[in-house]
């Protein structure tokens, strides 16, 4: 009798295990997707990418969200784009003529380029898209004030500027809030919240957005690639997969598990602590790419740090190498450099300010604080644990400030609250932020007045000088001067530069990373 009951229980367990074992048989469902025989090898027709969060929109001119811009970059294209050297090169434009006074740009458009709805791109579409961009994108509004695009003929578009500036083409190629070319009808139908559909000219076209699950792109069969060799975001683009799914996977461990099992081909934003673990795996590649700069912003408007002497004292005492090591764990993942711009973007690379940057002189800092009349007042470090590196850096800075004899407290909030408090100058003295690179100095958050409150006449003057410089060399010299001044006025200090990590399976062929994973020209081996 008893054995019968034991049998009953055992049967239930065996049934449960058998149910799980069934998964083994159907494992192929997860990993392989339909036939895709190209050349000698078998390739998959689907690519799965795990991203950290669902973007708010795919309308490029409305957002600075990296996830949104990375996805939208497959669907939409721009007149100019960046090559691997961060130089602006034509994409939907064929060429440009600049007038002698520098105020008129005449773009010749590529012919025969079709939108995903089958219609051919015309000058009307370009003008509608670009004029919307110069009025909706805050970057464009501030960098190209009162700029206007007009149709000259069906394949020629003219840009008229208020004043000549040296950085027009690179602004047109900027990734943040990029000027996507879309059909004029779509632009006209757009509301204040953005466009209602996503029709571009890119190698992939928008298919479906399943809220909180995925965005599905499909191959654009009629894509018209340029002849030039692929480089960065420019050159020949070819879609080798039929379907691309961007899955929204907020949990780090799930993204990592997914890449290890091959459920995802690419996983973005791999946490730094998993670098070693994934790097040692045979089936997974970890690519690092220029992430951005970690910067400490000082409150120049209110409180103790409104005094430049206090800012100077604090900067003198900070040991950037310690902060970076704690924040990024591995020396491969960060570099010390006082530059606000990407050190690899040669035009803007400068070491101006290296005297005070990473001085780490605690005794001198103490002396400077005393000279400035510091009397033990409390300063507040604002941070959020939602970005691990920002939090860790803040904690190390807290400790370093204590060693300088500063009375310091840390206030930690979730990210939305952090953003709100950042905008209230009575609530903080210092905060650390990791932000992606900008392509030109005037786009830097560190010099944008309403971002961290940096307002200074000399900064504005030098920014204007950079933009109106007659040659790249003259602009570079002015930037050199401005960065030097930033290390005198000290509205902020760069802590260092970090790499971002992307994991991919070994099954990818031709895969490159430039600012983001590049999906075109990439094959997935079965």
């Amino acid at each position, binding site marked *: *009798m008893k054995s*019968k*009951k*034991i049998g*009953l*229980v055992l049967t*239930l367990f065996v049934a*449960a295990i058998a*149910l*799980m*074992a*069934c*998964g*083994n048989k*159907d*494992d192929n*469902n*997860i990993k392989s997707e339909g036939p895709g025989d190209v050349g000698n090898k078998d390739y998959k027709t689907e690519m799965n990418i795990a991203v950290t*969060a*669902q973007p*708010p*929109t795919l309308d490029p001119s409305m*957002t*600075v*969200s990296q996830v949104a811009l990375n996805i939208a970059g497959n669907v939409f294209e721009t007149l100019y784009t960046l090559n691997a050297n961060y130089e602006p090169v034509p994409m939907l434009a064929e060429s440009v003529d600049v007038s002698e006074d520098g105020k008129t740009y005449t773009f010749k458009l590529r012919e025969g380029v079709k939108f995903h709805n089958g219609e051919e791109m015309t000058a009307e579409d370009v003008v509608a898209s670009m004029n919307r961009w110069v009025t909706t994108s*805050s970057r464009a509004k501030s960098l190209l004030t009162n700029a206007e695009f007009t149709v000259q003929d069906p394949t020629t578009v003219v840009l008229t500027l208020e004043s000549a500036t040296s950085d027009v083409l690179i602004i047109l190629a900027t990734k*943040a809030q990029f000027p996507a070319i879309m059909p004029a009808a779509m632009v006209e139908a757009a509301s*204040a*919240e953005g466009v209602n559909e996503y029709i571009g000219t890119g190698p992939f076209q928008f298919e479906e957005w*399943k*809220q*909180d*699950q995925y965005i599905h792109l499909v191959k654009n069969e009629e894509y018209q690639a340029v002849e030039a060799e692929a480089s960065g975001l420019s050159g020949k683009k070819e879609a080798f997969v039929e379907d691309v799914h961007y*899955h*929204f*996977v*907020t*949990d780090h*461990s*799930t993204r990592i*598990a*997914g890449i*290890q*099992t091959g*459920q995802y081909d690419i996983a973005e934003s791999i946490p730094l602590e998993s670098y070693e673990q994934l790097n040692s795996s045979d089936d997974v590649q970890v690519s690092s790419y220029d992430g951005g700069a970690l910067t400490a912003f000082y409150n120049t408007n209110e409180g103790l740090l409104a005094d430049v002497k206090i800012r100077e004292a604090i900067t003198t005492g900070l040991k950037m190498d310690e902060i970076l090591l704690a924040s990024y764990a591995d020396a491969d993942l960060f570099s010390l450099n006082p530059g606000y711009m990407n050190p690899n973007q040669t035009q803007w690379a400068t070491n101006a300010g290296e005297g005070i940057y990473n001085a780490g002189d605690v005794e001198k800092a103490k002396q400077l604080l005393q000279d400035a009349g510091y009397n033990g007042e409390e300063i507040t470090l604002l941070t959020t644990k939602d970005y691990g590196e920002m939090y860790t850096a803040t904690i190390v800075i807290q400790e370093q400030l204590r060693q300088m004899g500063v009375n310091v407290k840390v206030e930690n*909030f*979730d*990210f*939305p*609250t952090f*953003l*709100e*408090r950042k*905008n209230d100058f009575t609530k903080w003295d210092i905060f650390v*932020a990791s*932000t*992606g690179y900008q392509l030109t100095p005037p786009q830097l958050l560190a010099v*944008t007045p*309403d*971002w961290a409150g940096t307002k200074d006449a000399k900064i504005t003057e030098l920014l204007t000088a950079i933009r109106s410089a007659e040659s790249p060399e003259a602009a570079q010299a002015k930037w050199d001067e401005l960065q030097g001044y930033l290390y005198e006025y000290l509205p902020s200090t760069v802590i260092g530069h970090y790499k971002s990590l992307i994991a991919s399976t070994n099954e990818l062929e031709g895969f490159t990373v430039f600012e983001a994973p590049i999906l075109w020209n990439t094959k997935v081996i079965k």
Partner: protein
Amino acid sequence: MIIYILKRVLSLIPVLFVVSIAIFLIVHLTPGDPAATILGIEATQEQIEELNEQMGLNLPLYQQYIQWVSGVLQGDFGQSYFMKESVTEAIWSHLGPTASLAILAEIVALVIAIPIGIFAAYRRGTAVDQSLMGVSLIGMAVPSFLLALLLMLFVGVYLQWLPVAGYKPLSKGLWEHFQYLILPAISLGAIQAALVARMTRASMLEVLDANFIKTARSKGVYEYKVVLKHALRNAFLPILTVIGQSFGTLVTGAVVVETVFNIPGLGQLIINSIVRRDFAVIQGVVLFVSLIYVTINLIIDLLYGIVDPRVRLERK
């Protein structure tokens, strides 16, 4: 009886009114700006103010509340700022995965728990009983997220038997649907299984000591019949109550498991909406879940009224 039902239904109105004010205030007094969150870290103050204005978040709080409540009374829970769809659509599309997960977790819990509970009660006091109850104690103590991660690592990554994350709706096929839910259901069902197993054991113990069981045995009824037919049937009512109560907990308890296994259910919706400060969705989901709880309570009250007429009389 009809008057009793009417009274009970009417009594819900002040409850829901208070709940609606509480939800609204909690959400709107939480620091964090929806526009800033949507626009991201590099957004400027000007952009943030522009978006807040567009979303009507610059209006005084009482006006926003009146707008929201009058919408809700007409069945309109508002628009999600972030997802650009109505809150009702958002809830509806996220309800399916949570319901599937909760049902499967409940099945997992029952399949494990009831045999264990019966067996432990039957072998009361023996080493088998003690070890089964020990295991169930561990089951109650292990947090579901830990179990979720362990299962993901072992069954998903190491054995590669099941996918580690994601969700496919039932329309894609039964196995496609279930293979994504098995690991989350086990993680979620384990605590429930432990609770139900202990409840089954306790309830069975009480019944197994009763005189009618002794009578049945003395009449020579087969032992399995004594246990499964006579004892279990009588012990089942309290177990059923626990199962009923636990189902609500499963629906709301799915939050963490849904996040770990990336299942787009209500739990994930509310977590994401809090992170995005998508006020309308947070309010909508909390109100929806409150409605479910209040309705379940109402049904239970009404059932009590039907089963036991004294309840009705007392309330008159």
